[in-house]
């Protein structure tokens, strides 16, 4: 895989499409174990991201990701803003000066993004959060010589579905304790859409 500026913008557009299509579903997930604003927040944030990156000319992938981060931080009201924002910001910092993004550079960016989410949210794996999707996806990239588009989406999907079985111990969902079992974590679901979008972009380039 190789990511250029156009691919990155396409990744964000596809992520946005999926989030817009599933806005109500994400909100319903958040209604079950949170404060019901995840779909609204993410759809507002990603729409702004797409508006932003389509209105400007970019020379580097890093700059696209940096603008994505800043937009998410300022436009998503809930916890997803700082978390997804930090992820994209760390990613952008790690791939600064590298264009286009090779699989190796992408993997390093993903590693830093995950580290950022963990640091910002003070979360670990197994707490029913977006970390439970990001972590196996990062592991997949680290352990694979040639990334397969379908495997990216499958890894993320499986990981998202597994959050159903976990009791939430982090974030607003932790107030629901064992009642959180049986529900997919909303942040895990929106993370899945982002990786599903990525998988489609990787597929398109091959």
């Amino acid at each position, binding site marked *: 895989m190789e990511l250029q500026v156009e691919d990155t913008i396409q990744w964000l557009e596809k992520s946005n499409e999926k989030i817009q299509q599933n806005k109500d579903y994400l909100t319903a997930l958040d209604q079950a174990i949170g404060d019901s604003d995840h779909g609204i927040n993410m759809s507002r944030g990603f729409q702004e991201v797409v508006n932003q990156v389509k209105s400007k000319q970019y020379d580097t992938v890093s700059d696209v990701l940096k603008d994505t981060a800043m937009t998410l931080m300022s436009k998503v*009201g809930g916890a997803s*803003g*700082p978390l997804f*924002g*930090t992820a994209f910001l760390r990613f952008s910092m790690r791939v600064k000066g590298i264009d286009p993004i090779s699989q190796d550079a992408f993997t390093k960016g993903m590693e830093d993004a995950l580290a950022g989410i963990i640091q910002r949210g003070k979360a670990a794996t197994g707490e029913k959060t977006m970390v439970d999707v990001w972590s196996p996806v990062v592991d997949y990239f680290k352990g694979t010589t040639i990334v397969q588009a379908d495997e990216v989406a499958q890894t993320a999907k499986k990981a998202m579905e597994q959050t159903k079985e976990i009791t939430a111990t982090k974030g607003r969902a932790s107030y629901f304790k064992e009642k959180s079992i049986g529900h997919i974590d909303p942040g895990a679901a929106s993370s899945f859409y982002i990786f599903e979008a990525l998988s489609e972009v990787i597929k398109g380039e091959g």
Partner: protein
Amino acid sequence: MERVGIVLISHSSKIAEGLKELISQVITDVPIETAGGTEENEIGTSIEKIMESIHRADYGKGVLLFYDIGSAKMNAEIAIEMAESIEIILSEAPLVEGSYVGAVESGMGKSLKEVYDAVEKAF
């Protein structure tokens, strides 16, 4: 006004404003700034609002931040990382009681560290 500034961060602009009103009834010579709600004044917090409040509350003696729940803390941490030149501490004390104690201590002309320690000791 050589006092440690206080910033009240809440998901609700009404909570932040109401709290400022409560504190201001007693403490009038301490810079107290609010960062409540999102940029559209909906429920949530805004890094930009927090940063602006930090700058307004800083008179050279630093700023102590108080927050309510969840993402307010993450946004406060990002704002702190961005406001490099100002001395800032994020208090983990409950928003209402903590900021009240903080404002009283700041009003005595104490340093940021002293105000922070006094708040910590109270909870």
